[in-house]
């Protein structure tokens, strides 16, 4: 293998059950129940959330998978890009809100 994150490896996700299979089975059942069904949230809404998380976590497998999932659930590029912006502003906000900590400490240090 010449690179990390080979796109063909996405197909091997099921192979995480090669060891500790019971735990993998539990995970995939939970995964399917959460993402594969309409509940209080529609599958489209869940796919858009997953797309945003994929970007926040910078997972190329998930970005590919959930771009397709969004399309297969009728989402459009505007909705998908807005979801990514939600991830982006959350990350920016999380960074910025820590500046309160900086200011608190600054206040302590400065005479």
């Amino acid at each position: 293998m010449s690179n990390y994150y080979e796109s063909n490896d996405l197909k091997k996700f099921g192979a995480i059950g090669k060891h500790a299979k019971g735990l993998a089975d539990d995970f995939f059942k939970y995964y399917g129940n959460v993402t594969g069904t309409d509940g209080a949230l529609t599958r489209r809404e869940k796919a858009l959330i997953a797309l945003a998380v994929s970007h926040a976590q910078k997972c190329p497998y998930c970005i590919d998978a959930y771009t397709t999932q969004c399309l297969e659930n009728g989402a459009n590029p505007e909705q998908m890009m807005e979801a990514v912006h939600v991830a982006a502003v959350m990350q920016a906000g999380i960074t910025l809100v820590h500046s309160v900590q900086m200011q608190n400490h600054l206040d302590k240090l400065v005479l």
Partner: protein
Amino acid sequence: MNHDFETQLRKAGIELPPLAVETLQVNITKLCNQQCRHCHVDASPARSEMMSPEGIAKCLEILERHPGIAKLDITGGAPELHPGFRGFVERARALGRHVMVRHNLTVQLDPHPQTGASMEYLPEFFARRRVEVISSLPYYQQYFTDAQRGNGVFGKSIEAMKRLNAQGYGVEGSGLALNLVYNPVGPYLPPAQAALEADYKRELKAKFGVLFNGLFTITNMPINRFRLHLQKTGQLEPYMDKLLAAFNPAAAEGVMCRSLISVGHDGRIYDCDFNQMLEMDAADRDGKPLSIFDFDFERALGRRIRFGEHCLGCTAGAGSSCGGATA
């Protein structure tokens, strides 16, 4: 991965004999004013195949002789570009048949690619003959629609739908049906039909004041122009794997080839429009190819449907047919 369709049927314990011949689907020309990137017919303004007047007369004779074939589904290309189109519709309606036209919307507004004639009469013609209009619109926004069907197609499609609405199409109580067709704009499966129809209705009405009746979701078949695109971009194998993984026995039971026959411009008979484009002739139990020129209802009904790996497109997920999802 093995993409053999009949292996899937055997694994699921399913047999798919023909159930009826309720619909005569006739592809009268490959000529089209558009050249869509996914088109399984490879239709374009450069194509010239046309059904002969004798072929159209034979189709009408079949309809007259067999009242059980209740529907005539006219497709192409853009079937309106055939010089015998209007007569075909009028005579089939006079026989009391339900007539569906696969109308690409923009053909109303583009001049005829061969003659330059205006086609703006079509909405009024459809309404007068009470034809069911079935039109492709890959999405309720411009981006996907123009990507698949060509620049400017979305705007023209909206204008054409407004003209159909003005004749009563899509308007409640008019009895004039305008149904839209959704195709994915790439190698992925269609969304759930009912939810997407609700989106289309809400968005098209709110943004453009356009009305329609139903939405049919159709999966892209891995044949001809779309297959070539998949091959060129290295996506054919993953797409076939996706269709295979989504094989749905319930969708298989409802495949359209069990209730229709498809007729090519030269009169040859096929199990569906896709088999027609792959030149997989339908044959009777004795292996003799079926044709409108020696049509026999029992031979057609008794045929064994021919399957190929492309059939996985009709059985994936919620299924796919010319009338939308099947499961």
